[in-house]
């Protein structure tokens, strides 16, 4: 027998192994839900799968009576727009700021303490300030995401830049590079895949801030819907929405990973993740 750390499941086996916990959860839920509904058919806490399917069908394919919108899709697109915009802005800011912090000592000395201080403020605590300044519209929701994840992304980018072997920076200079050329041809291309990794890690927080902002003030969005129907204990909507959010988050993570691999083929392929 090989050691456990050296035993790798085959492809099919890997998928099956991954499915088992999900099937178990579904099974347990289905059983418990049945039990409860048998005792009380009006129980709202654990709706049957069929009830959830009906509700989702209504939200996906029937226009809402009030606004004529297909609520599920409107919610999804509002949320994704906010999330995408927030994450994109954060990525851009942290790329620029992080690289300059990491490579130019004078900028680091001047700005790094500020970034550290800002990163210590809990973003939700300044949500009211955002609402006051930017109003209750889209801007403050996007801003919350930006404020929430950018400090982490900046600091991560800065550290990755500082982790680049000194030898490379020196070598570039002996090849005649000026500071700007070191940044554009040595640092930036090596940092982009690291930034994508950091984005993957911060997506979870980005969702958190999005849903928090939507819960407090919004007229559409996945988070808004969940908090709205909570008043009617509509678990038949909440549960599918939560699963849908998880699926979207998983898809975003997957796409970022694919992007990183295909856009930066020079990355060492022999990492353990590749197996």
């Amino acid at each position, binding site marked *: 027998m090989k050691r456990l750390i050296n035993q790798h499941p085959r492809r099919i086996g890997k998928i099956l192994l991954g499915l088992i916990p999900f099937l178990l959860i579904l099974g347990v839920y289905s059983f418990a839900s049945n039990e409860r509904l048998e005792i009380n058919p009006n129980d709202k806490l654990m709706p049957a799968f069929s009830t959830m399917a009906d509700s989702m069908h209504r939200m996906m394919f029937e226009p809402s009576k009030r606004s004529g919108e297909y609520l599920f899709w409107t919610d999804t697109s509002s949320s994704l727009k906010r999330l995408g915009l927030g994450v994109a802005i954060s990525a851009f800011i942290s790329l620029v700021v992080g690289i300059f912090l990491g490579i130019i000592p004078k900028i680091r000395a001047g700005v790094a303490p500020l970034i550290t201080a800002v990163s210590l403020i809990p973003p939700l605590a300044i949500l009211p300030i955002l609402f006051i300044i930017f109003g209750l519209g889209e801007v403050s929701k996007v801003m919350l995401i930006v404020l929430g994840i950018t400090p982490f992304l900046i600091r991560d980018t800065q550290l990755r830049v500082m982790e680049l072997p000194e*030898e490379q920076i020196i070598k*570039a*200079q*002996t*090849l*005649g590079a000026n500071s700007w*050329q070191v940044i*554009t041809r040595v640092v930036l291309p090596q940092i982009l895949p690291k930034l994508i990794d950091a984005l993957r890690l911060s997506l979870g927080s980005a969702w958190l801030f999005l849903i928090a902002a939507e819960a407090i003030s919004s007229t559409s969005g996945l988070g808004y819907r969940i908090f709205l129907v909570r008043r009617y204990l509509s678990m038949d909507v909440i549960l599918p929405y939560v699963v849908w959010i998880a699926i979207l988050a998983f898809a975003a993570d997957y796409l970022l990973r694919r992007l990183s691999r295909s856009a930066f*083929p*020079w990355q060492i392929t022999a990492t353990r993740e590749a197996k």
Partner: protein
Amino acid sequence: MKTIEIKHLWKEYGDNIVLEDLNLSVKAGEFVTLVGTSGCGKTTFLKLLLGIETVTRGKILLDDEPLVDEPDATRGIVFQRYSSFPHLNVVENVMLGEEFESSPLFGRSFGKKRQAIRERAIKILKRVGLGDAIDKYPSELSGGMQQRLAIAQALIKNPSILLLDEPFGALDPGIRADMHELILDIWKETKLTIFMITHDLKEGFHLGTRLLVFDKRRHDPDQPNRYGATITYDIPVEKTDNETLDEITGSMSNKKQEATL
């Protein structure tokens, strides 16, 4: 062509005196090998020549001018590792030096210019024996090939001084011999001044025109940092014989014993 003049050079890190009162004069086109016990300051010396460390006291003159105290294209370097850029393939790694020069803003060249640079790079790569690997990434190369790449990279800038810090230390003996041939040939063709650190005294004797041994003249067992190293032997390589080799080997191992006592 550059002559290098070093006068009463001292290098200290806080209380730690690394180099003391080092004097040296090197003519253009010499091939200088540096040996010495681990931690005696060889890399520090190379860093001073490269301009990434500053002297505590004393002077380094390049053609009678004080040395520029940051790295530039007159001094090429090959480190033991991390010398090439992982995100560029072999030929792009070599082209980089020329591209920096041709485009100050982006460090990128296009069209005919790029083609010309590429051809030059390929010529140099063939020269160092990497003609078949131009499309590979550095991580796909063996250790010896990576060092060939690092040398090619430095050569495209026609530096007048080439600094090598144990460039072949991690290679197998057979490959090391090939690399010796290569570096000697390149030195003969380009007539550049080479400083090469090595751990292998025989390598120092085999290569180059001049062998420098770094060592401490005085030694205080209680305060090992009290005295710095300096050049204790400065031998023209043609004049070397087995007797000298034994003598140096002896002196180095004696010091090691003293240090451990």
